[in-house]
Every structure is written in C-alpha cells, then in structure tokens.
C-alpha cells in the first residue's frame, strides 16, 4: 500500500516510457539492421529522448488536473446558464482563437502563397503574396470557428453525426473538381493542421461535458465529433477560397 502510494507520481512517467518505446525500437531496427549505420550523436539522442519522456508525462498530468476539468466545468456552467448565444460565441472564439496563431498554419499558408505566386494565380510581389497568405490563414481560422459552432449545435439538437460528416465528404469530393489544382493539396493539408495538441483535449472535454449535462444526450453518441467537424470544414473553406481568388 505504502509502495503504491510512492509509485503514484511516477505513473505518467512509466506510461510515457511505454508510449515512446515503439519509436525507439523502430529507429534502432532500421538504423542498425536495415541501413546498417551507427546512431549519430548518441548523447544528443539520449538527452532528447529524456526530454520527450518528461514532456509527455507532464502533459498527461496537466490534462488530468487542468485542461479536462476546466473544459468540463465550463460546459456544465454553459448548460446550466442555458444561453445558447453565449455558448455559440464561446465555441466560435475557441475554434478561431486556437487556430489563428497556430505556428503550423502560418507555415503552411506562407508556402501556399509562394506556390500560388509561382503558378501565376496571384502576382508575385511581396504584397500580393502576404495578403494571399493572410487571407488563407483567416479562412482556415474562420472555418474552424464555424466548425465548432456547427458541432456544438449538433450536440444541442442531437443531429446524427454521420449524416453531417458523410454529407461533408460529398461536398469535398465535388468541390475538388472545381477548385484550382494549386489549392487542393493545401486544402487537404489544412484539415490536419488545425487540430493542435491543446485544442483537442479542450474541445473534447467541452463536447463530452455538454452532452452529459443536457438531458437526452448521450456522451458517447453526442459528445465526440467536434474534431471531425474541425478537420472537415477547413478543406471546404480553403477550396472555396481557391475558387474565389
């Protein structure tokens, strides 16, 4: 009993080690047995792995005591307050705010603008490239905000998720025909870029919290699905952006 109490703080560390083991094994196997090369900078590697391990353990502990309880308690408070407008505004800002400053998105938008300039879609002046990149970034951030709003509305109304998402896929496939070639790659990429590591736990906790505090909603059936919206809508919005410009 005593021992178990002592081991408790180290549990996330053990789990992190278990989660990282496969990566180490894969790298060792391919490097030593397939490519037959030594590991360069063994010391750097070890330090780096130690940081990854510690970081993952801290992150998981932080989720348990910080992000999850906060997301849930806010969802309960919104449900109790019963004001749909504030809830939807919160949903929009959460989606918009987490995406607009996302470093991965800024990088992708910049690259997309360069490609567009090379392809002659826009003028290749610095000004045109920058405004194209900014426009793209805003489009994606708007789309994620809208996605969370739609997802929350779905939880409130109890719409079945698969109709929404499969319908969305049809729109994506149809729009791929009309969108210019240069934008398609970026559009498909943007779906993955938007779901950052801090957004996912918060949004999941919000959805599950809402679904469990609204009568007649099931947290399994209605609580999940916000992320699916957030990875679908950016594709549609970015292709629209490509068609309009």
């Amino acid at each position: 009993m005593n021992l178990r109490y002592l081991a408790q703080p180290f549990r996330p560390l053990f789990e992190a080690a278990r989660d990282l083991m496969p990566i180490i094994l894969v790298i060792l196997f391919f490097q030593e047995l397939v490519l037959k090369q030594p590991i360069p900078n063994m010391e750097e590697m070890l330090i780096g792995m130690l940081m990854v391990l510690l970081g993952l353990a801290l992150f998981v502990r932080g989720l348990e005591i910080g992000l999850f309880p906060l997301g849930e308690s806010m969802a309960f408070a919104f449900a109790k307050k019963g004001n749909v407008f504030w809830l939807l505004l919160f949903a929009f800002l959460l989606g918009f705010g987490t995406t607009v400053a996302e470093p991965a998105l800024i990088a992708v938008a910049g690259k997309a603008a360069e490609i567009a300039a090379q392809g002659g879609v826009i003028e290749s002046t610095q000004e045109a490239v920058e405004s194209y990149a900014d426009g793209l970034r805003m489009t994606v951030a708007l789309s994620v905000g809208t996605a969370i709003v739609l997802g929350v509305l779905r939880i409130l109304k109890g719409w079945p998720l698969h109709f929404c998402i499969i319908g969305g896929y049809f729109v994506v496939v149809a729009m791929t025909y009309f969108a210019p070639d240069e934008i398609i790659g970026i559009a498909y990429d943007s779906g993955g870029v938007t779901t950052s590591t801090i957004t996912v736990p918060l949004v999941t906790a919000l959805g599950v919290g809402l679904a469990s505090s609204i009568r007649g909603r099931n947290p399994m059936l209605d609580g999940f699905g916000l992320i699916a919206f957030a990875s679908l809508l950016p594709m549609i919005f970015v292709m629209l952006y490509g068609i309009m410009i």
Partner: protein
Amino acid sequence: MSHLELFQETLQSTLRDVIPIALVLIGFQMFVLRQKIAHAWRVLRGFVYVLLGLALFLMGLEEAIFPLGEVMATQLTNPAFLYGDLYKDGVAVIETIRWQDYGWVYAFAFAIGLATTLAEPSLIAVGMKAQQVSGGAISAWGLRLAVSLGVAIGVSLGCFRIVTGTDLWLYIVVAYVLVILQTMRAPKMIIPLAYDSGGVTTSTVTVPLLAALGLGLAATIPGRSPLIDGFGLIAFASVFPIMSVMGYAQISRWLENKKKNTGGEDAL
C-alpha cells in the same frame, strides 16, 4: 544554440499558441459565466504542466527524433540503397521503377506510422476521455492501437501509391465508400469516436516524419511531384484510422457475441 536558449524559444512559441485560448477561457469565465473555478490553483498548475510538457516534448523531438527520422527516410528512398548492385557510380542500370523493390520503404512507413501515432499527445487525450466516458468498455490503449494500425496501413498504402503513380482520387473515393459502408454496419456508439480519430492522428509527431518520407520518395522517383504526392500521405493517414476504429468495434462486438452465443445488444 544551447539547450537553454532552444527551450526558451520553444516555450515562447508554445505560449504564443496558448495565449488566445487562455484569453477566451478567462474572459468567458469572468464576464459571462461569472463562476468560481473549483480547485483554481490545481487547474492553473495543470495548465503550467501542459505548457512545460509540450515545450519539452517538442524540443526533444526536434533534437532527437526528427533529424534522424528524416535522414533515415531519405536514405531508405535512395535508389543506391534500394537497388544496390543495379545502381553503380550514380547511374541507374534499371530502366523502370518496380514497386516490388520498395519493400523496405513500405515496412518503414508501416512501422513509423504505428510508432509515432502511439506517442501522439492529442490521441492520448482522446483515448483517456473515451475510456472514461464509455465506463471502460473502450480501453484507451485499445483505441490508440486501433488508430495507430489504421495510420500504419494507410501510410504504407500511400507509399505504394507514390511508387506506382496511381491516381490519388481512386484511393480516396474507395476509402470514403468503405467508410460509408462501415458506418451502416458498425456499433452506433463508436461512430463519433471513429470520425474524431481521423482528425487527431495528423498532429505533432506524425506529420513531420510522414512529410519527410513522402517528399523523399517523390523526389527520387522520376515523374512524381513532391507538391502533389507529398501531401497524399497525410490524406491516407486521416482516412484509414476511421476504418480501423470502426473495424476494432466490429471485431470486439463479434467476439463478444460469439462468447455469449446470443445475438443481443453489443457491449459498446
């Protein structure tokens, strides 16, 4: 750059990413909900843990895993490695690309897709939530394994597509049709979770390594464009987990029914 400077820089960029979210949360908490947060200090400590943890995690990846992973991806896709004796003095003796010669590339894609997805922090978060909400009927580890297998299969198929140069649309349309068919048959409870797993997989750890693999492959095979073929891998990595998670639920229901030998409701 020293470790300390690098850590500072990573922490700053993580902070920049978090500040808008923190503002929204605090603003609504103070002005709209006007309620006290239970265990406020504990929650705040949790936020600090998440920030520090994420910064350490990203920095360690940059330091240890990404450089080596990228070098490995380039080496594995190098014709000199793949064709050995057939490729002498920098001149290829072979004339056509044969997909059979890329066995190690598919194997690496499978293994690295599986391993990186298992370590993906957002997936860990969703797994924790799913286990809690389902009351343990879905285990966090089982879900993550199912998602990782989906990514692994998707990514190796994606590499096969780049090598053979077949049309991306064909694969994606077939995959979507399969998703629709599975949606009609799978236990209802798993569907939202399965759709969510598609978006979760393509995140911090997986994307940089997959991009390196796709770009390396597209650059060494004549006639492939890094622009068009590079991104294809990520599309594969987000569709296949949807199928594998629904498949996982279908198989566990089938096993359950077989054990009970009754055709009753599923366990999920």
